[in-house]
């Protein structure tokens, strides 16, 4: 049984609408299917506004999808008993992008770490909570822990340290899955790898599954080497599969465009670089997405069918799935970097 499964999940937001003003709708997620097993790593990749954060929030149960099922260990989380929901609640944690906003500014680090442990009986008293918190901080590489537990407030820590505290808090309730929403994008570049390594260590040693949400293909490639990838465009998952396979042989024009946009640190290669001629750089208005394939307004290969029929994810072998009518016609993408 899968740890976490999304079946045909869609999320539509209402925006605007005063007492008299008309309402508009945004489809943030459209018919998404995902499967996450114990200890899996899934990279969820897409531009900002593509619905990847919403999908993450649906996985953590912060948002109830407008349709579809969210299953935790085979049970729909919106239909289970209170006790089962509590199990799920603790089982799936979230790590936010902005570590400063993720920590209560007027509460000490110790309070932030101890409150959930005390609440759920993981620690029986403040004494025990202190010791557990210290252990957690040591695991996160924040040593000596006393320095951080002793009347320290979030603003007194560096961005990297804060993000480690956030991770420690998530791990403190012994979760099975952590949804990490752009966890390193606000951290100094030099510290990003260390944080990703820490998350990989948690995955390896504690067997915690990760959903890594990012717009950055490079860090996705680094963190989810052995995991899976799902690429989103305007609320739809357009391509998914084992990360290595998908990135080596991208089939969806959108993913090809994304890969082309990744800078390569070699002037020779960049010069030869084959530009994927997108028809426009502008994202369509999400309140009125284009009919048919949502990418057709920008797709260089589009044909009449793309403007009328919505493509569905089709398997092309080895767990690799693509949602594109013209998958068989689209030329192979040339990797620029020989190492990939």
């Amino acid at each position, binding site marked *: 049984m899968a740890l976490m499964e999304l079946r045909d999940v869609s999320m539509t937001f209402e925006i*605007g609408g*005063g*007492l*008299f*003003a*008309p309402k508009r709708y945004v489809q943030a997620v459209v018919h998404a299917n995902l499967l996450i097993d114990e200890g899996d790593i899934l990279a969820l990749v897409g531009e900002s506004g593509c619905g990847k954060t919403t999908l993450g929030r649906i996985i953590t149960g912060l948002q109830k999808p407008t349709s579809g099922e969210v299953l935790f260990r085979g049970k729909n989380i919106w239909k289970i008993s209170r006790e089962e929901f509590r199990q799920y609640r603790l089982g799936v944690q979230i790590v936010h992008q902005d570590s400063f906003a993720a920590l209560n500014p007027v509460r000490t680090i110790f309070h932030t770490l101890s409150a959930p442990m005390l609440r759920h009986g993981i620690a029986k008293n403040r004494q025990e909570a202190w010791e557990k918190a210290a252990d957690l901080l040591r695991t996160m590489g924040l040593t000596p822990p006393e320095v951080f537990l002793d009347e320290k407030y979030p603003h007194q820590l560096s961005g990297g340290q804060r993000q480690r505290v956030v991770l420690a808090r998530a791990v403190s309730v012994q979760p099975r899955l952590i949804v990490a929403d752009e966890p390193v994008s606000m951290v100094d570049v030099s510290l990003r790898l260390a944080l990703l390594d820490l998350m990989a260590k948690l995955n390896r040693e504690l067997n915690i599954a990760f959903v890594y949400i990012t717009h950055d293909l490079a860090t996705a490639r680094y963190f989810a080497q052995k995991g899976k990838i799902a690429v989103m465009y305007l609320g739809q998952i357009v391509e998914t599969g084992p990360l290595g396979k998908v990135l080596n042989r991208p089939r969806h024009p959108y993913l090809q465009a994304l890969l082309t946009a990744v800078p390569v640190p070699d002037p020779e290669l960049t010069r030869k670089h084959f530009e994927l001629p997108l028809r426009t750089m502008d994202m369509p208005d999400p309140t009125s997405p284009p009919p048919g394939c949502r990418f057709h307004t920008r797709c260089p290969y589009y044909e009449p069918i793309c403007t009328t029929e919505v493509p569905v994810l089709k398997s092309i072998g080895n767990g690799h799935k693509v949602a594109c009518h013209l998958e068989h016609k689209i030329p192979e993408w040339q990797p620029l970097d020989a190492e990939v």
Partner: protein
Amino acid sequence: MTERQKKLVAVVLGITFLIGLFARISLSSDLAAIDARLEEIRRVGHSSEEIALLQEEYSEKGNVVSLITLGLIVSGLALLYFMNAGLANRVGFALLTVALVAFITYTLIRIMPGDPIQQLATELVRERGLSYEDAVNMAYTLLDYDPEESFLEGFADYMAGVLRFEFGYSWVYHVSVNKIIARALPWTLLVLSISLMLSFAIGILLGMAIAWKRRTALDPIITFYAAFTGATPDYVTALVLLIVFAVNLRWFPLSGGYDPTLDIGFNWPFIASVLYHAFLPILAYTFENTAAWALAMKGSAVSTLGEDYVMAARARGLRDRRIMVSYVGRNALLPMITGLAIALGSMLGGSTLIENIYNYPGIGRFNAEALVRRDLGMMQGLFLFQAMAVIFANLMADLLYTRLDPRIKLED
């Protein structure tokens, strides 16, 4: 709905509105005639039967007028919605606020401890020498009060009056509150508008000055001045000015709005006398409000000074005066506009005490009199009027601001 349908609905609404308006105007003159007769009888008459009869007629026609007015408001709002939804939203909220205030005022009448009928009847026995029974009947008709009426029926009646802009009946003066308002409002408007303009203008100039030239002695002086006036209730300022300039120095008159020995009219001695009497109240209001404007303007101007376009203007070598007036001044001034309505509201609120202190013949003095003499009718009528005036002022300021600042859209 298609554009065509929308237009059709709008035209129908517009025609309905115009017809309603016409009916409303022609009927109100009828009402005014009945009211005048009622007034006459009330002043001298003892016959409560005739009053009752007239009142019956009045309330019948009045209800029609109220209904038409309600229709006018609804169709007007719908029409507005077709033209500008955001605007309709604001107006709708303002109307809702008026309704809410009316509801509260009405509730106060109903739950007030002690029987207002008895109170008025006792007064009538004493004043006019009626028998107690007659007096009670008279009180019922005067207050247009039916003890059998349920809370909601009573509220409907009350709202019908509000829709006709009738603010009730003064127990002490035995006239409609509308008459009192008509007599008192010009005085209050005179003092408030001059004070508001003066304090606004002086405050804005001071604020600009301290925003432009920081680290001068002016800044801390203004800051302290603001703290001081913030700490001093306006009636204390008014009292001090009265004691110093009117009682002890005798530079200014102790009370009144003008010298009663002069001919009332558009002649110089009368105008001079009016201004002379208004001087201390205006001084009190202006002294109280200027510093707050200066500080608000300073804040607004300082943040405007940091904007890129001001930097760019400086870089282009424009003269200081030019930057200050056409770049900083204009943009920093815009947010101040909403403050005008709030200031007007608080000044109007304070007028009850200030006009009482100067015995100035405006709304506030009548309000104070109503409060002290427990003239509930006048009290509530004046309160509703003040509230409606402030709500209206707020709405106007809001609309003006959105009109002047292109960045703000009329959406909620």
